[in-house]
């Protein structure tokens, strides 16, 4: 069955405490050369029918209203995954 992927990230101007904590942990564990981490969310939506433009538009609407909070997050990707 086809799958649509939705990716949500904290807005650039919003401090991302989780990303900051991960960023702090990396060098402690010996991973160097990484200067910033931002942590977001990935949703995988399995759909019944073929992925049409209408269906993608519907998923975009769901992404903007339920899967993300536009006050603090941006939907950065809505796409069919092969």
């Amino acid at each position, binding site marked *: 069955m086809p799958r649509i992927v939705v990716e949500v990230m904290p807005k650039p101007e919003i401090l991302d*405490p989780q990303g900051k904590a991960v960023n702090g942990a990396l060098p402690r564990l010996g991973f160097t050369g990484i200067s910033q981490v931002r942590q977001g969310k990935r949703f995988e939506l399995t759909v019944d029918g073929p992925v049409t433009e209408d269906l993608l538009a519907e998923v975009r609407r769901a992404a903007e209203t339920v899967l993300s909070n536009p006050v603090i997050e941006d939907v950065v990707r809505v796409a069919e995954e092969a």
Partner: protein
Amino acid sequence: MAQQPAVERGTGAAVGARIGVITFPGTLDDRDAARAVRLAGATPVTLWHGDPDLHGVDAVVLPGGFSYGDYLRAGAIARFAPAMNAVVDAARGGLPVLGICNGFQMLTESHLLPGSMIKNDHLHFLCRDQGLRVENTATAWTSQFAAGEEIVIPLKNQDGQYVADERTLDELEAEGRVVFRYVGGNPNGSRRDIAGITNERGNVVGLMPHPEHAVEPGFGPDASAGPRSGLDGLRFFTSAISSLLATA
């Protein structure tokens, strides 16, 4: 079974006021909120998230906890509960609504209040008695406080950092809609030390700290009268009762 103390029965003049407390899956503080309503002198009415009928209550408390496990975002799924749809409609019509902690998060997710809560800047769950300054005494839930009064009620959360864009923050300040500000140190990185806000009309108030845990001697925060004697939370509920009487 021990006899209930007289104060539990709600013998105040406003015993007719019925204040609903909504329970969602994962709500923790509904019983304490109902108890606070009773101690303040009103009648608590138990409401269920799946019931779109608010049963004619005069005001609603959205209590704290972790509704739906805080999955997706704190308060995000509760926003779509049948009871919440009814609350949103009624709040737009002027029904007094108090959102505490997770209830505040529901109010921002349902856009009754602006901004949002994200994880505390220090990333830890924090539980402590918290000082607040009351900056707006014109709301349905704060009329019994003095302007600028400092109070202490418990604070306990992990996602308590209030954020909004600068324009929204400026608007809130200009319109006097910052109701509570943290004093004695910002516990979570909230913008401009904001602990609680209200809508334009003043009937909807949300805050992160917990007034319902400071309503009975022996169970509140430490205060000048002695350990656990703090009762500053009680006036949230007596304020609602007096605002209901004023409009009755």
